[in-house]
Structure formats: C-alpha cells, structure tokens
C-alpha cells in the first residue's frame, strides 16, 4: 500500500518549500520528500542570504524573469512568515580606476531588468555611505536586501505542514516508476504514489531527472566557503559590499554581506568539486577570504572570525565553460507530469516565491482545486525576544517565566524559544534543527555553554541521550549515559571470561 498524493515535491530547499506553501492554498494532497533530517540543509541554508535585484542576470533569461518577479514579492513574503528581512542596499565597489567601466555595464544590465534607483557614486559618496570601505567608485543598488535564508525555508515548510502538506524528512528518493497521473516514488521508508512530480532536488536534481528518463542535464557542484564574523565588528559596514564580478568566474566574487542578525559574512569562494555533499572548509580559502575582504575593509583581523561554513551551488555549466548558466524551469517532453527545476543556484533564494507561483499554476492547470481552509495566511513559529524591548520582555516573563531563562547567552535565546523550536511542526529534533529555528549555539561560544542545557531540554522532551543527533542520520552525540557504558563494559568482560573458560 502506498500513500497517494496529487503532487510530490522532491527536495525541501527554499524552492521546494515555497512550492509546498503555495500549493497549501488549495485543496490538494501534497508531500515533500527531503533526504536530510530537516529542510534547508542543502544549498538553501548555506548562502549569502541576499535578495538580488536583477543587476547580475541578462535580460530575457529565465533567471532574470524569476529573479525580478521574486524580488518584488520578497518583503511581503518575509513579513507574512515572520522572517527577518532588511533592505540594507548594496554597493558594488571598483577598487581601482580600471574597474569603473565594469560598473556601467552592470548598471545597464540592471536597467534592462528595470531595477530602480541605480546610481554610480564617486569615492567621496562611497566613503560617506561606508566610512570603512576603500574604493575608487561604486554602483549603488539601494533596493537590494538581505533575508535569513534558513529561517525562510523553515517557515515555508512549517507553514505548509500546518496547512496540511506532508513533509517527509529522512526520505531520499531512490527510484521513480510509472507515468503522469500514477508515479510510484520509492524511498527507503515507503512507496509514494503521486499524480505530478516537482523536481526541486537542487544538487540532486539531475539524478531525479534521470530517474524519470530525462538525461539532458548534469549538475556540477561548486563549493562556496564563507567565514562568519563576530557581531562585535558587525558595525563595520552598513550595506552589502560587492566587488566587480570576476570575468568568467563561477560566482559574483567574494563579498562582504551583513546578516539579518548583525554578523558579517565573507565569501563565497567558488571551487568545483565532484561530491555535492563535500561541504568542507579549507585553511587556504579561509586565508583568501580574509585577505580579499581586507582589501575593502582594512580593519579586519582573523580574531574576528567566529566560524566557517560551506555551501554548494548546483551549476549547469562546468568550470571550463564558465560564465552564465540559466535556470531550467520547465516540463520536458521525455517526462510529462514532472516539473523540472534544475540548476537553481543564485539567485534561487530570490526567485523562489516567483518559481513557486509559476509551479502552482502549472499544477492547477492539470488538477483544478478549490481553496484550502487550512491554509496558513501568516506564520510565526519561534519568537525572537532578542528583538524585543525590555518592557515587552518583562511583560512576557510575567506571563511565561521561561522567557526569563536565557539558555544561549551569546545570542540571548530563552528557554521558551528553545522549547518551541524543539516542538516544531516538522518533528525535526536534531541539535541543528533547534539551532536553525532558535539561533541558539550560533554565537561566539558556538554552544560551549548552552549545548548541555539544550541537551537537558531535549531529554525532558522525551528523547533518550543516544537518540540525540547533531544533524540526523549517524551524527550521534552521545553513546549513552556513563552508567550504561559501565554496564556494557561489565557484560563484555563477563562474556569474555565465559569465552576464556
């Protein structure tokens, strides 16, 4: 017996989750199949969190269409879902005179995409906007914004789940049989029947395409390393600071990006790799990031780094080809009934709301549906007391004293926030699931102090120590209690003795 759905969305990244939420507006049976222990664990959780305006994408491309449309939808999208969003603006900085003509080219590209208020500014104006930044001239992009990418993805998925979508975690798709109207999708846990499939599997989208007989694409993973700087130096910049994009490079160049929480990101690098899961960080790139960023921001030191991480771009162009690779957003003739979303790299986060709307229309053309009364018009999961005034916090503590217990003191996360994160809509209970929902452990001590307290709260919620993981799968944190270990050792010794006899 397999569960029957109208639509199966493969991949719980920002695009898959946005589609799930969009489809939850309608009376449809929808599932999301996510291979990891939580949504947002791939490309969507590990990027710059930039809401792009459309200055970097050629007019007429698929990327441009969804980027520009998505950017217009984004602010309300974040407001509805209680996701941090800030229109901080962006400056693309020419370090020397020779780079100034490149700014004109970018400006023209942006104007073709109807990006408003673009302006070339001189050294003095740049200095006034960004006193700590060195540069000869800059393109000012005041409408560029930042959002918290993992908070958005999680909110999309959770609101969809609350609206009736089945989000199935730990469900990698291994095989797809059948045709439009009667697909049979295999995961290690079950077989799922679905009328339509949305392939939003990111780094795995070429493999999913092959499972339905489409062999046109190959995804080339391209790793981007970042370092995160302490909030202490968060005030060094006001807006995003980008270099002129390197010619033929795989990315937009190493940029300096504020986060919605007040940190600064340096990155990303761009290194093609054979393994899309190989999200390691390297000493070489860490040095390079700090060196390149210090060209713009001479005050940076290695001491300002809290930690490093890597994300992976699912690119459709190889390192050799270089340059621009467009998004694939289409149903192709080899596989009717499958919406193929392939090569959704940057600006995929920005494009997600627009892609979701497009896919929703595609679904409803095939399966007409009425409105779903359970749709969550707005969503707010874990409160953020760190953004509240003291008097508001005082009132909240009077109602719920657990708002008075700070568990993560680097990021000022309270017990109530942690408990709400544990009791999430998706039943994702790894330490990382709690981290990305509450922000606990993301500060300068990296969980050194609050880790044990979070573990207490997980155990209080009914988990055994052995079942607590960092990230699902085999990422266990504890063998068990020390008493268990002693008992095991005793049994082992006893049986060895028996064996010896």
């Amino acid at each position, binding site marked *: 017996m397999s569960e029957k759905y109208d639509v199966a969305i493969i991949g719980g990244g920002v695009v898959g989750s946005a589609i799930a939420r969009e489809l939850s507006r309608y009376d449809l049976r929808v599932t999301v199949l996510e291979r990891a222990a939580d949504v947002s664990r791939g490309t969507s959780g590990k990027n710059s969190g930039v809401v792009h305006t459309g200055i970097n994408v050629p007019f007429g491309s698929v990327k441009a269409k969804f980027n520009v449309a998505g950017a217009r939808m984004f602010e309300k999208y974040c407001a509805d879902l209680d996701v941090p969003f800030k229109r901080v603006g962006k400056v693309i900085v020419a370090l020397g005179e020779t780079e100034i003509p490149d700014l004109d080219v970018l400006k023209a590209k942006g104007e073709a995409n109807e990006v408003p208020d673009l302006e070339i500014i001189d050294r003095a104006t740049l200095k006034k906007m960004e006193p700590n930044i060195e540069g000869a001239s800059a393109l000012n992009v005041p409408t560029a914004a930042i959002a918290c990418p993992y908070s958005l993805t999680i909110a999309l998925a959770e609101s969809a789940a609350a609206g009736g979508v089945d989000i199935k975690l730990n469900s990698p798709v291994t095989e797809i049989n059948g045709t439009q109207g009667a697909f049979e999708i295999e995961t290690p846990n079950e077989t799922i029947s679905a009328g339509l499939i949305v392939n939003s599997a990111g780094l795995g989208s070429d493999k999913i395409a092959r499972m339905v007989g489409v062999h046109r694409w190959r995804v080339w993973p391209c790793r981007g390393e970042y370092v995160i700087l302490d909030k202490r130096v968060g005030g060094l910049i006001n807006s995003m600071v980008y270099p002129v994009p390197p010619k033929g490079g795989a990315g937009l160049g190493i940029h300096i990006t504020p986060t919605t929480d007040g940190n600064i990101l340096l990155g990303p690098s761009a290194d093609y790799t054979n393994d899309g899961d190989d999200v*390691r960080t390297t000493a070489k790139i860490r040095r390079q990031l700090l060196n390149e960023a210090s060209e713009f921001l001479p005050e940076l030191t290695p001491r300002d780094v809290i930690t490093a991480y890597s994300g992976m771009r699912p690119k459709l162009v190889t390192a050799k080809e270089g340059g621009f690779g467009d998004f694939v957003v289409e149903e192709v003739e080899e596989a009717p009934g499958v919406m193929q979303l392939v090569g959704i790299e940057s600006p995929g986060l920005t494009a997600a709301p627009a892609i979701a709307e497009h896919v929703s229309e595609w679904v409803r053309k095939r399966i007409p549906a009425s409105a779903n009364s359970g749709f969550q018009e707005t969503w707010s999961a874990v409160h953020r007391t760190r953004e509240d005034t003291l008097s508001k916090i*005082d009132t909240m503590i009077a109602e719920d004293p*657990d708002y008075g217990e700070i568990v993560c003191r680097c990021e000022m996360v309270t017990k109530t926030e942690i408990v709400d994160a544990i009791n999430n809509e998706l039943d994702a209970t790894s330490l990382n699931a709690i981290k990305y929902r509450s922000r606990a452990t993301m500060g300068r001590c990296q969980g050194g102090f609050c880790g044990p307290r979070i573990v*207490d709260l997980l155990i209080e919620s009914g988990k055994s120590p052995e079942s607590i993981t960092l990230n699902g799968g085999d990422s*266990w944190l504890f*063998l068990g209690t020390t*008493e268990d270990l002693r008992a095991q050792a005793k049994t082992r010794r006893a049986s060895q003795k028996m064996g010896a006899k």
Partner: protein
Amino acid sequence: MASPKIVDVAVIGGGPAGLAAAAEAKGAGANSVLLLERDDKVGGILNQQVHDGFGTKVFKEALTGPEYAAIYEDRVNERNVETWLNTIVTDLTDERVITVRNKGGVQTIQAGAVIIATGCRERTRGAIGTAGTRPAGVYTAGSVQNYMNVRNLAVGKKVVILGSGDIGLIMARRLTLEGAEVVCVAEILPQPSGIAGNLVRCLEDYDIPLYLNTTVSEIHGKERLTGVTLAEVGPKMGEVKGTRRFVECDTLLLSVGLIPETELAVGVGVDMHRATNGAVVDDSFRTSIPGIFSCGNVLQVHDVVDYATLESEKAGVAAAQWAMTGQLPDAKINMSAGNGLRYVLPTTISGEDAVDFTMRPWKEEHDKSVVFKSGGEVLRRLKMPHMEPAGMIRVRVAKGRFKNVIDNEITAEIED
C-alpha cells in the same frame, strides 16, 4: 518594571572569583552585597571539576572543585551576601546601572561598585579555524567535562585531544577512566600548555602520547567524526610538508585556550589589555571606569584557582572601600613588561601598599630572575628556578621598595 534595586557592591559572576570577591566585600564593611549568577547554583566551572587538586595553596589540602566551591558558598551565605541565581546580566552602564533578567522579570540595579568576575569561555574550532567537514563529535574539553561529570553522558569511544591545556589533560584521564581510548594529545606549540603535574598525572600515568609541534589540519566524517589528519608544524606555525597522517577517532576534544568573557567590560567602555585580553587594572583592581572592578579569569587566565581566589578577595575589599568611602589610593606608578615577559598586572600601582604582581613569560626559562627596575635601579630581584608560559609568575613586592621609584615608572623583566 520595578524601580532600581540599590546595593553597595554588585558582583557579576558567581564562580570562584565572584564568590571570593563578594564574601570579602561584605567582610570589609559593605552593607549590601549582591552576587549575580546566571546558573542555577554558584561555583561556576568548579561544579564540573570533580578531580582534586584545588585549594593546595589556600587550604594546604587537595579538594575537588565542588568541595572548594562549597567553602566559599558557605562563606557568602554566612556573611549574608544576597545571591540571585538563574540571573543574567544583559547590560552594564558606566554609571554602574546593571540590567538583569530572570524568571522574575527584567530588573535594574544601581550599585556603588561593580565587580566584573565573569570568567572565560573556551576557544572553539571556528575560532582556531580547523579545516574539514562539520560532523558530530567535535567538542570543547570543558563542554565534555560538563556532559560527563554533571550529566553522566558519554561522548565517544576513541578520542583525539587537540591542545595540552589543563582541562584537556584532565579530560584525557577522565575519558580513559570512563572506558574510552584516548589516542593522543596533539599540541601545536613546542611546549605543553598545561602545568607539569598534570602531564604526569593525566598522560604519562596512562601511557597517552603527547605530540608537540603537531596540530589537527583536517577534520573528517560527514555525520559522525571518522578521524582527523594530524600534521607537524614548523617554527612559524606553518604545516611541515609530508608530515600529514590520518588518525581514526570518533571524538575530537579541543583544549585550545580560554577567552575572557569581556563583553560586559568592553560594552561599558573599560580599557582593555592587549596581552591578557582582560581589563587594564590598578593594584585595587579598578578598571579605567570609576567604580568598576575586575578580577579572576576575566581579568587574566589563571593557572590555579587558589590565586584567582586571592586576587578576587583583594578586589572585593577594594570595591567595598570605594563603595563605602569613595576613596582608594591613587595609582600613579605605571608598570610595563620588559624583556621576556608577555605582561605584568596590575598595570598601575599606588606604591602605598605591597603588591602581588602576576606575569607570564613568553617562553620557558631556567634559573633566571624576575627583576623590577625603576630609572635603571633594581627595586626587587627574585631568582626563579623555572618559568613557563603555562604557569603564572607571582612576585610580591613590599611597600618599602616603592620609595625609590623614579618618574613613576617601573619595568618588570627577566634577566640572567
């Protein structure tokens, strides 16, 4: 929100430093002393340090961490220090207004004097920039100490320890006793970071190898840690080619240093010391902001808790005196660290009383002297058979010696 609570002395942090400071502030005549502790009990990191060796200087016996803490807990209680547990300080102003949060709500406190005794946090993988994947199984040594000793949780079976700091060494022994295999301890420096006694008691006694000039150059494993790459480092901390080797393990403990938790001090604008990363203080433990004092590990990372206690007792007495009388001796004499020393604390002194100076050498030294000089003249010379960066140097200079100070400048240095 209620109106501010008024106290003579407020102590931020209820670890060994805060306990000692609060008890002595009360003992020295402050009418009201308030001790603020974020945890559900006082004692700080001592609560998880179940091994013995604490108190050998102060009590001439080897106590466990909780035993040592209990003595001072009793003392603050006997002296009627008011203690607020589960209370976090969210703000401190230069007018000594403290904002706290606990289950009772948000509250402000107006203190006559404030003692910052917030201790340290551990340096993390991210801060030292260890390359590789991000699997489960990479812990700081102190957090494992907490998991094992407070929560009875076992973290792994086969362990590599990076860094030979004292907590790392003690955890090597502790993990071995709990049935885990400690493969090795790797130390990037040419000398151990922990004190000599711990090298014998925690590594040699259990045949655990210590590799000097060695670091973890990469972390492996996608879900749980599967191993680490060790590599030797040269004199400039660069990796020596051809020395990489893979070591299988499921757990990596980091004992790579402590960072003073100075966010409150920095936030209020206290002048900081380049070498200690703590505040700049005079011999009354006053910071650059009137009425704000600092002591214990947030001031300078100590090697032995007893000395943190002794230092904090003095800070407590001085803070009480300042809160009650508004007076402390002027510290006009500047101290500077000369040849061979990373730093000397206090950085200014009054010269009106004896001073216990604390210093750290840049490198290991044998049969040399610590010399205090002013205007080329020696004020005090003390022969030291052995000095090492892992140990703090302590030298008492009597009041009488300061009579000969010239131009209010004293230099401390190491000489043959």
